[in-house]
């Protein structure tokens, strides 16, 4: 499905904070209607990478290209204006606010003139409910409901629907399924597919290999700030990916070291032959 120039591309991007290098030589690209899964253990530099993509950080070296043009984001708002939307683990929603208000946060529709512009609650609620339903969440019918009453998956869906509605071209999903149960996660994955079908470039960050394999077209494994592997769908098995994420050590080794008695823990390699 991906056609020609990628929507967003990183070329040899480095990011360091003072003397600490967090990202080295990251090169990635995502095209329209493509899902890039970014896999990595905790501390692999995923968050820094997301923040660099979302305009929060500037790359120390290297360049970011949008539609083939080298570009710089002056800040998160700039990146957003150019169609980069980030949805965080907990959906970036406000539990004690209504669905309509959540949906239009920062982009409130208004009626009236000048200083007497008022928030157009009905319009906000109507659009929010419509958009969420289009994403396949039919349980949401009332825009006045508070988001706190929704399930984790529904919140994610709301956040994704919001990003799609506001014209996102690149959707960055930061661990959207991490805190969810199996059913809820399936829900979110279905919505990722829906976003992909609508031609968005999706960057899906996760450490759950199963979820990645369910939706991904392209995979990149991040280890200690560098891309350790880069492959397309079907090129690796689940076990291989899991091994890669664990830092190159075979998962079987890790399992052995966990199961072994505590006093044998130092002998991870020794335990390996099991």
């Amino acid at each position, binding site marked *: 499905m991906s056609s020609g120039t990628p929507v967003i591309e990183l070329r040899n991007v480095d990011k360091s904070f003072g003397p600490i290098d967090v990202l080295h030589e990251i090169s990635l690209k995502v095209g329209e209607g493509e899902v890039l899964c970014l896999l990595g253990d905790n501390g692999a530099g995923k968050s820094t990478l997301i923040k660099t993509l*979302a305009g929060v950080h500037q790359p120390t070296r290297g360049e970011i290209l949008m539609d083939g043009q080298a570009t710089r984001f002056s800040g*998160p*708002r700039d990146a*957003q204006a150019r169609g980069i939307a*980030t949805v*965080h683990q*907990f959906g*970036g*929603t*406000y*539990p*004690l*606010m209504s669905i309509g*208000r959540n949906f*239009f*946060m*920062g*982009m*409130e*529709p*208004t*009626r*009236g*003139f000048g200083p*007497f*512009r*008022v*928030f*157009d*609650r*009905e*319009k906000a609620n109507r659009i929010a409910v419509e958009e969420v339903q289009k994403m396949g969440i039919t349980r949401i*019918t*009332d825009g*006045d*409901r*508070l988001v*706190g*009453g929704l399930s984790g998956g529904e919140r994610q869906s709301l956040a994704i629907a919001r990003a799609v509605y506001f014209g996102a071209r690149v959707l960055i999903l930061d661990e959207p399924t991490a805190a969810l149960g199996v059913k809820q996660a399936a829900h979110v994955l279905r919505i990722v597919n829906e976003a992909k079908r609508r031609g968005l470039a999706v960057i899906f960050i996760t450490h759950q290999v199963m979820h990645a394999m369910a939706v991904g077209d392209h995979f990149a494994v991040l280890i200690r700030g560098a891309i350790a592997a880069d492959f397309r769908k079907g090129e690796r098995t689940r076990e291989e990916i899991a091994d890669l994420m664990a830092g190159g050590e075979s998962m079987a080794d890790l399992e052995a070291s966990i199961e072994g008695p505590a006093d044998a823990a130092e002998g991870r390699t020794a335990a390996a032959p099991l």
Partner: protein
Amino acid sequence: MTDTTSTGGPAESPRAEKPSPSLSLGELMRSPAAGAFMGFAMVFIVFAIFGFQRNFLSVGGISTWVNFASTVGMIAIPVGFLMIAGELDISTGAVLPASAMTVAVISGYYEMPIMLGVCAALSVGALIGFINGMIVTRTQVPSFIVTLATLFAVAGLTLSLSIVFINTTQTSLNAPDWAKTLFGGRLLGGFRSSVFWWIAMIVGFIFFLHKSPWGNWVFALGGDQESARNAGIPVQRLKIGLFMLSSTSTAFAGVLQTIQFNAATSQANFGMIFNTIIACVVGGLLLTGGFGTVMGIVFGTLTLGVVQQGIGYTEIDRNLSFLIIGVMLLIAVLMNDTFRKLATSWSTKKK
């Protein structure tokens, strides 16, 4: 960014409430103001029963606690905004005497025009709010500590500066008649003009918090600050603005008090801090932020007014007022939690 549909001005504010009564009832019930209103109604009825023989329901009786509530209320609402935004402002206890002394020294002691004194007092308030806001947004220090620090700093400064300028800690102010009427007069048999100022401010504050898009941002600050920033909301400027609003409103209350009573003292008003926070909590605000209504705070303030001032017009022992406030506060906090749960689980039937 925002598309303005061209609906005319007139049918603006009273919309939505009328067409679907079931919806507005639901909205009323799950609103944090509902609990506050019921609390107020209950306290009022009990006090009215005990005060029936003691003029509790006379104009004089009602105006006493409404006057008190108006001063607390015009401070409590913007303090409540900060609470909704997840912050706290307790420097109000020092801003009040600081602004009172400013207007009294300038317009009373030095006999300069009253409006100059009023403007200077409001500027003092705005400046303190700005300092609060800057420190809170630039550092990671909780606003409780920051405003505690400014509370003491400003209180000390007010005392020592009044010694420097007028060599005493109290002074009098005799405002010209028009100013006296505008800022401190009595109307309708006992209501201070501060009551009418308060009503005007309530209207403005309701518009700000519940109607304008800005209100959304205030709630977002208290809901999830990081997400608010990601959504492009100017978090820092908004916060500084809210701190300035709170201390400027406090300064205004100080000005009204000074003109009303013809005198100002530089003693810090620690009671006011507690009054505003009690009014907010009884009004259904959560200390964790993200939830609350202006009308809730209004009812909270009125309840406080009845218990603290209205008690003098009843057969209830005056000394019990603190006890009642304490118990009320506890009940309110427990109820707020229940109301929040109700609010999140509430859903309308299919329309």
